[in-house]
């Protein structure tokens, strides 16, 4: 419960003039300002009881985003609906927080009188320039007393994640019809249907791959008569959580935001290495021990990001980081311990990007220094880890997911 901003200003002006008039002993102004202060205080004491009765549970609300995942610089339609189960006649302001998105059309705020059963609709279009996990919401309702002096703010719907990608087409999606009632991303169980990414690994003959896992149509022979076979990547069944750690919110002059590239690559590899029915949670580290999570789903229109307040226990986790936040190591340890997670830690060395802008020697020194720093931090986590750069991320992920082979 708090005072309306305008009522606060009135009280502040009254109190300031009250103090000045006390010093100057200006009786009429002392009386006037004191009267206003008394009125506000007594009104607040008398009027707060009614507002306190209104609870978050008294609201019925929905918040839908379409499309999600979305493409940067393309409009996303956001629709929020709110209605009150009981009470009524209260002036209210309902707002959907835009986060880092910017409004294109419509309004994210509604102001008026709330009454039981009346559905309030807030529809608008917004877009984002930045790739990555963005958030819309929370949906907040500010309920006022009839005079508008007191306000009770309620967060009636949590914030919802929107995944902005450079292009949604870059992500491979299942090409077969799902038999599942609640389809999720992942490849079909049908062994004869696959995507290009499945056939990429080459192994020398001496490795003797299992015959049933060889794609015989793609057997090749090199100039030295050495036989190569192309093997299917193993598809994962287990549910997965992808954590985007600290240090990716930087922009490279030619390649845009690093987080965008990382996300795009991670999703590209992950979605083509999981089996139908596998669930993926996307989680972002916000700093200060805080994470936000969204569940990647699949609908008839393609990929879909859904709300998820938390991740379940015993998950397979891919944690990508640059160890920029000081407290991140402790947070990772705590997270893995408390949830019994099975982690794959990938530290990204961005030093390689510097070769484009600095001399090779200088860049190599930076790469080495960054590598040392990443190793030092990764060792402190006590987890198994891989260190890679942006270019090698896809291959690293692919090997880790399919064969648990660290690079």
């Amino acid at each position: 419960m708090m005072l309306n901003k305008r009522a606060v200003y009135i009280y502040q002006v009254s109190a300031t003039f009250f103090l000045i008039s006390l010093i100057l002993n200006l009786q009429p102004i002392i009386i006037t300002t004191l009267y206003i202060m008394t009125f506000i205080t007594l009104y607040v004491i008398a009027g707060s009881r009614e507002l306190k009765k209104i609870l978050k549970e008294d609201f019925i609300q929905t918040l839908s985003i379409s499309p999600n995942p979305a493409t940067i610089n393309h409009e996303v339609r956001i629709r929020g609906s709110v209605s009150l189960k009981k009470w009524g006649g209260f002036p209210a302001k309902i707002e959907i927080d835009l986060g880092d998105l910017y409004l294109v059309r419509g309004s994210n705020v509604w102001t008026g009188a709330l009454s039981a059963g009346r559905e309030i609709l807030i529809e608008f279009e917004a877009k984002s320039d930045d790739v990555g996990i963005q958030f819309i919401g929370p949906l907040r309702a500010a309920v006022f007393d009839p005079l508008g002096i007191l306000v009770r703010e309620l967060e009636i719907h949590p914030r919802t994640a929107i995944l902005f990608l450079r292009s949604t087409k870059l992500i491979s999606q299942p090409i077969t019809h799902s038999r599942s009632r609640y389809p999720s991303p992942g490849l079909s169980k049908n062994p004869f249907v696959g995507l290009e990414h499945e056939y990429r690994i080459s192994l020398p003959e001496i490795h003797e791959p299992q015959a049933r896992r060889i794609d015989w149509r793609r057997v090749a022979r090199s100039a030295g008569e050495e036989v190569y076979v192309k093997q299917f990547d193993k598809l994962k069944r287990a549910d997965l959580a992808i954590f985007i750690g600290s240090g990716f919110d930087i922009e490279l002059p030619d390649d845009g935001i690093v987080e965008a590239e990382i996300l795009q690559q991670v999703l590209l590899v992950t979605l083509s290495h999981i089996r139908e029915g596998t669930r993926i949670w996307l989680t972002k580290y916000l700093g200060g021990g805080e994470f936000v999570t969204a569940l990647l789903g699949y609908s008839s229109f393609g990929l879909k990001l859904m709300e998820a307040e938390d991740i379940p226990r015993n998950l397979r986790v891919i944690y990508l980081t640059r160890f920029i936040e000081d407290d991140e190591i402790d947070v990772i340890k705590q997270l893995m311990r408390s949830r019994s997670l099975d982690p794959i830690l990938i530290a990204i060395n961005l030093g390689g990007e510097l070769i484009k802008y600095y001399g090779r020697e200088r860049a190599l020194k930076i790469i080495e220094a960054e590598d040392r720093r990443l190793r030092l931090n990764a060792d402190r986590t006590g987890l198994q880890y891989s260190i890679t750069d942006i270019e090698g991320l896809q291959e690293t992920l692919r090997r880790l997911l399919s064969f648990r082979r660290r690079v």
Partner: protein
Amino acid sequence: MKPFEKILLTLICLPSIYSSIMAFKALKAPDLFLFMGFVGLVLMVLSKYIVDVIVAMLYVPAIASFTLFLLNNPQPIIGLAAGYIIASTLILPIIAFNQDSPHTYLAIYLISIFLDMNLLAASKPPITSTLLLRNLFYGLRGFHGVMDPIFSIMIAPSVAALLYHIFRLIRPSTSTMISSHRSLIVLLLSALPILGLTILSRYSPGYAWISSIILGLILTISLVLHLNLG
């Protein structure tokens, strides 16, 4: 402006109207330029800045008085300035009436009341426009308010109208101070300690002053505690 708003504005301006009348009444002899200055400024605002009115009522007297000032006759320009100062107490709440922010209007109103008190203190008959100006500026240093009972009475309806107006500007709201039973009851209850203070100030201004501080502190602390702990 709707008739209701005109009544509201008149009520808010009551202390200023009273202090202006008292300033005119205190004049030893009628001063044409002082009157022209007052009327010119008030008409300019009431006519919503019509060019003809501004030229006739503002520029003509200003040029005339300035010409006379150059001809070594400063009295008209002093009279005009005194007229402007008297009018300023009245036009401040009028100009700011359509302000959207209630706290700005409240601040302007309180400044206007302060100017009214200063004007009343400076209007000790018999005065001339020169004396009025001198009293106004020199009086500010040793100014300790005014105890005019009629002025205090005028403030009561003025504050009631002011409260109605400023709390009407708080949005969003579904009722006004008059339409809400709770606000009417609280309005009357709030008047009780203020009435007590006013009575106390008649008999012991020192105790009233200390009581004001205590009441102000109690109110602020109660408000903060209630909002944070309640």
